[in-house]
């Protein structure tokens, strides 16, 4: 044996199994198995609340190389149910690293599976669609695990927002990081900027940091907060965040959003984009295996420019149903799905992808400025 590591296994709902080694927390976890094609950014991915209820497999085979640090996080702790890689690199090297990925996963009780043919797994998901699965380091009997995994629910109809949203509202004051990437930029979060209320459906911190960068005073509120309560705060704009699960299942958010539209400028990202669409009367559907990665091409139909975007979604707005209620502004070039829309007259703008990046390219940061402009014109 060249590697002395405990065993671990993944069993998918269709019965397919992959045996490898454990490199995280010793235990079991279930969730929808999805893949992400980003080469860098595993710490941001792990801590993105949109991955609640999901087991993430990285297509890039060497993970752990740069360890983990204290600042590249999108929420307080990892959110994925389990993490799957081809090879975990135990030695990490980076000037900002504070600990190993392994210690990090163990600390937050996230199982990790390595040493499997991740490309075969990705091709399987690509062909058969994202499906529930179980990662186990305790039970190696595939038959038993198959039985367990058969009972797991599909992502369709699941409201996972309630599991990740904040309990109470709070102010966010941190901007994005300085050039040396160690602390938030000085001078951010000026008083007297635009007052933005941000619905937390599982919000990524880099969205908040970017709102602060563009001069907003940000109040984060729980997902269930009523429209009336939000309007009472007299905001210049409302932001609808990203988040996990099926957007159609988050009925309370759709209701509240409907009440806000037309009264105040609204900007939605990812799940927020879908909720805005649903509130306006469009339909959503589940994609076969979703878009997850930092290389997704989007065409800005307003200026014809290409944006390389960071994406993480399993549901999308139905293009036909959108045409009646708003204008398509961004198109996904790989499969021609809806990547963004606007309803100018109602002061609504939304994108399916992640302009805040983290991880991913910064091509679309301008959207935060556009949101500001929208509030300005109000």
């Amino acid at each position: 044996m060249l590697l002395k590591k405990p065993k671990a296994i993944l069993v998918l709902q269709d019965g397919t199994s992959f045996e490898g080694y454990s490199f995280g927390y010793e235990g079991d976890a279930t969730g929808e198995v999805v893949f992400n094609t980003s080469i860098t950014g595993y710490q941001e991915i792990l801590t993105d609340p949109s991955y609640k209820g999901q087991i993430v497999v990285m297509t890039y085979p060497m993970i752990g190389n740069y360890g983990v640090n204290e600042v590249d996080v999108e929420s307080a702790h990892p959110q994925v149910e389990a993490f799957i890689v081809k090879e975990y690199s135990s030695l990490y090297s980076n000037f900002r690293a504070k600990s190993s990925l392994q210690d990090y996963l163990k600390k937050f009780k996230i199982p990790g599976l390595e040493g499997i043919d991740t490309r075969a797994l990705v091709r399987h998901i690509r062909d058969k669609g994202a499906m529930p699965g179980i990662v186990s380091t305790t039970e190696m009997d595939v038959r038993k695990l198959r039985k367990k995994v058969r009972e797991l629910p599909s992502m369709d109809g699941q409201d996972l927002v309630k599991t990740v949203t904040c309990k109470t509202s709070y102010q966010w004051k941190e901007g994005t990081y300085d050039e040396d990437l160690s602390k938030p930029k000085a001078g951010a979060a000026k008083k007297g900027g635009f007052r933005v209320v941000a619905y937390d459906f599982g919000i990524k911190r880099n969205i908040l940091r970017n709102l602060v960068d563009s001069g907003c005073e940000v109040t984060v509120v729980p997902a269930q907060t009523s429209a009336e309560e939000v309007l009472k705060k007299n905001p210049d704009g409302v932001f609808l965040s990203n988040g996990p699960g099926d957007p159609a299942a988050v009925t309370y958010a759709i209701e509240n959003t409907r009440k806000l539209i037309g009264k105040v400028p609204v900007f939605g990202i990812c799940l927020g984009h879908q909720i805005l669409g649903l509130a306006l009367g469009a339909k959503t559907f589940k994609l076969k295996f979703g878009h997850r990665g930092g290389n997704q091409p989007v065409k800005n139909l307003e200026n014809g420019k290409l944006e390389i975007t960071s994406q993480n979604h399993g549901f999308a707005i139905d293009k036909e149903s959108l045409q009646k209620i708003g204008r398509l502004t961004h198109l996904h070039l790989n499969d021609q799905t809806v990547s963004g829309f606007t309803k100018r007259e109602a002061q609504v703008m939304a994108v399916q992808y992640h302009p805040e990046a983290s991880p991913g390219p910064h091509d679309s940061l301008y959207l935060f400025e556009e949101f500001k402009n929208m509030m300005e014109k109000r």
Partner: protein
Amino acid sequence: MPKRTDIKKIMLIGSGPIVIGQACEFDYSGVQAIKALKEDGYEVVLINSNPATIMTDPEFADATYIEPMTPEVISRIFEKERPQALLPTLGGQTALNLAVRLGEMGILEKYGVELIGANLQAIHKAEDRSEFKKAMQKIGVEVAKSGLAHNLEEAMEVVKKIGFPAILRPAFTLGGTGGSIAYHPEEYEELARVAIDASPVHQVLVEESLLGWKEFELEVMRDHRDSVVIICSIENFDPMGVHTGDSITVAPAQTLTDKEYQQLRDASIKIIREIGVETGGSNIQFAVNPENGRIIAIEMNPRVSRSSALASKATGFPIAKIATKLAVGYSLDEILNDITRYTPAAFEPTIDYVVTKIPRFAFEKFPAADATLTTQMKSVGEVMAIGRTFKESLQKAIRSLENKSFGFESKFPTKKVDQKLLKSKLKIPNWERLWYIADAMRIGMSVQEIHEITKIDPWFLAQIEEIVNAEKILKKIKPTPSAKFKSTLFEAKQFGFSDTRLAQLWSKKPQAVRSLRKKLKIKPVYKRVDTCAAEFEAHTPYLYSTYESEDESNVTKNKKVVILGSGPNRIGQGIEFDYCCVHASLALREEGFETIMINCNPETVSTDYDISSRLYFEPLTEEDVLNILEIEKPMGIIVQFGGQTPLKLSQAIHDNKFKILGTSPDSIDRAEDRKRFQALLNKLKLKQPPNGTARTLQQAKKVVQKIGYPVVVRPSYVLGGRGMEIVYDDQALTRYMKAAVAVSSDHPVLIDKFLENATEMDVDCISDGKNVVIAGIMEHIEEAGVHSGDSACCLPPHSIDAKLQENIERQTVLLAKELKVVGLMNIQFAIQGGQVYVLEVNPRASRTVPFVSKAIGRPLAKIAAKAMVGISLSKQDFLKAEVPSYLSVKEAVLPFAKFPGVDTLLGPEMKSTGEVMGIDREFGAAFAKAEIAAGTLLPLRGTVFISVNDFDKPYILSAAQKLLQLGFEILATEGTKKYLEKNNVACNSINKVIDGSPHIVDELKKGRVAMVINTPLGKKSAQDSYSIRRTALEYNIPYFTTTAAANAAVNGIASILKKGFSVHSLQDYHRKENKEAFASKSVMVS
């Protein structure tokens, strides 16, 4: 916006001869560019002086000019062809520099030619150090502290602000020529002088040292809509201080967090925008301080580069092709991704494997060269390997090198580790450092300690440590066909261990490990390179091996042929062999075969995924090749096109019951094996120089007693004249034999009588087993004794009479028939005193195949490949090759300028890296074109220095006389002067260097000599005149070290002075009815 319709005809500039720093990656990019332009209906005009390229095949461009690449010649082509646009970004630095000069000279404007891809301003901004610095400051990207110097005084001033170590970077040079690092004030002055001289504009950047910082490269593309994408990130294993061309590099970057990577991405986008590269690809290099992440932009290439070729092969994204499409007006979202077929090229490739590139060096060819790796590139080739982990990728890359290494063998296999040597090998960058790192780990040095000495990132070192630790465990295991052993062996294969390395660890034969492995059913699977990490289905079978569960090879049942490539470029085995492999593939596809290419050289056309039906990017070792053959089960394998690399595998292929196409391995052996070859010649009653073989000094002396000095000595089974020497006395023979016996006692040393002052001839022929066709006879310019790869040659022969040529043809046919050649064969003959001697017979594709093909206008490699699958020469309408009415001269290009301190004398060991071709109706003009193309600027006036040995004196007389008639002055050393004056040639005398100042080297340095003719005899004389040749080289003064070449050069000068020369496309030359037209207009060269 779709393609531009206002342009109809586009001219492309190639990169010229293969030199260190600019190799066949630009043939790859040029071929893609031409194909892309033709696909869109543009008419394409091409200039490239290098005949060994695929891009200069007459069927690619509409008009192909194999002419010297000078602004004057291009201007003449503009006049003739009237292209509307010039695309200069795909032919390396050569093309970019030419575009700049054409702009500066007003030639572009005169002919209304638009630069597409990059404009002059952008090129200038990127290439000029101070402009670049200003641009970076403007956009807030940091650059290293630096200052410019145009002379020594300024250089001394600048360094005061920067401190030591200081880096010297001359502007506008290839592969960092003339660049260096000065550690102390004492060495600074000399290094600064060299750097200033090396720059054509005498501009040098003196820069703060970033030694030990991490180095990264990003490949960026931009379209005219200002959309920018990053194709690939590359991290250098060797930290700053080693030229990126000499570094081991890894894709993608391994040790950057997303935040840091995005900073580099943002900076790259800002840079390409600010520099103003409107469409196409650029390469941007960064240094990152490992302590705090501080980012410094090092440089930007506003063109397709060596790294873009690597990035294309690493990701499957064809950068050159897309860059071309963007240059003619497409935007990224209008171009489809070839591999996924329905997603657009507007995206950033993502990969699910690790790519490692390792450079290949040729220091064994230049024992006097300093083998330290610095900011000046010295490698001659490279390999790339793909694995699912870094460890696998690295170990595959190591065995791809063909350096007799199959993994991390110890550098101290039999003796105790020399710690002092080890530490210096770690500290001073050298090509073997990888192996010394493993040795350091074996004696217990920690990753941290090694990091402190080498500055190599600990992550990479830890990966090597895992391999070394695995070796320790493996060594203790006894290989048995058990289940437990099976899982360990599987893990070892996942680590990338070769069967051969495992065999070493277990003291077994590689074949034994292989059969045990097969018995345990452990075999590789093949995965696809798909640009998208499996997010979409890949339609292109571009494959690499790994040890995992799922195989994606999807092998077909078609009629198929495997073609083995030639591996990394090296001196003696370069682009010519890749050219042949590509032709074989194209020809057999034409005939309905599925072709399967195996190769590991990322620079080549053969590793472009759309050349063959299927591409395996794999090492060319017995293990890796047999693995592929076993799953593909081809009807045949072509081994005769890729040089020695595939030939070495033919026995193993044959033993494993696979069929080798064409000439049988037994015939190849008959030609290679000394004894059998002699028997063959005796049977056919053909002559060879008297010879013998020896395994000991005594045996060697015995042979020499029989045949007499001088003799040529060489080891058996080599290509490129490796280890070959001409020996004049017992002392030299003793030294040679001692060294040879030490290297290999298995292989005997071959001793031939050296035929002095003989003319060497090269013949390429094709046979289908029935008919033999002589494709071309080449007469060497340099006399026998200079390696055929380094000698200029002329087709057809210009001074050999018809009777002798007929004799040569007769002997060629006899040999081809006796060896039952099917395919290509090359024979080297020597003519001495009207006698024809057979020097060497190679029943395989030779280095001259592309040259001959271009000269006679028939694709020899294609014809040969078809003959090998049974399509007769008569069916191919090739029963006779017509002798052209024009002359084609091939000249070698030598890398001496890259190796300070190395002598420039030619000998039996090949040293050239590339070749050029000159075509004209007259020998003089054709030779002159070839010389100019090779960078030798033949003077049209001035002083010529002549110093020749006694033996050569009669052969230089006519040249001297001619020079006087042409208005040159002659300067000669004492002996030569006496001889010339005695024969009524007036000349001035000058001291030899040993006679003291003022001597010839002083005159050379003062720029008072326009050309040097110097032929020393014997070792001592060669040492005396070394400084003359070296100075001439460094000051770019044409020099000739043989009388034959000197005479040809004087002919060339006379021809230019008389009537200049005309330029014609290859298509024109090949068109029979046009022959009269050649004499028309001429162009003068200054």
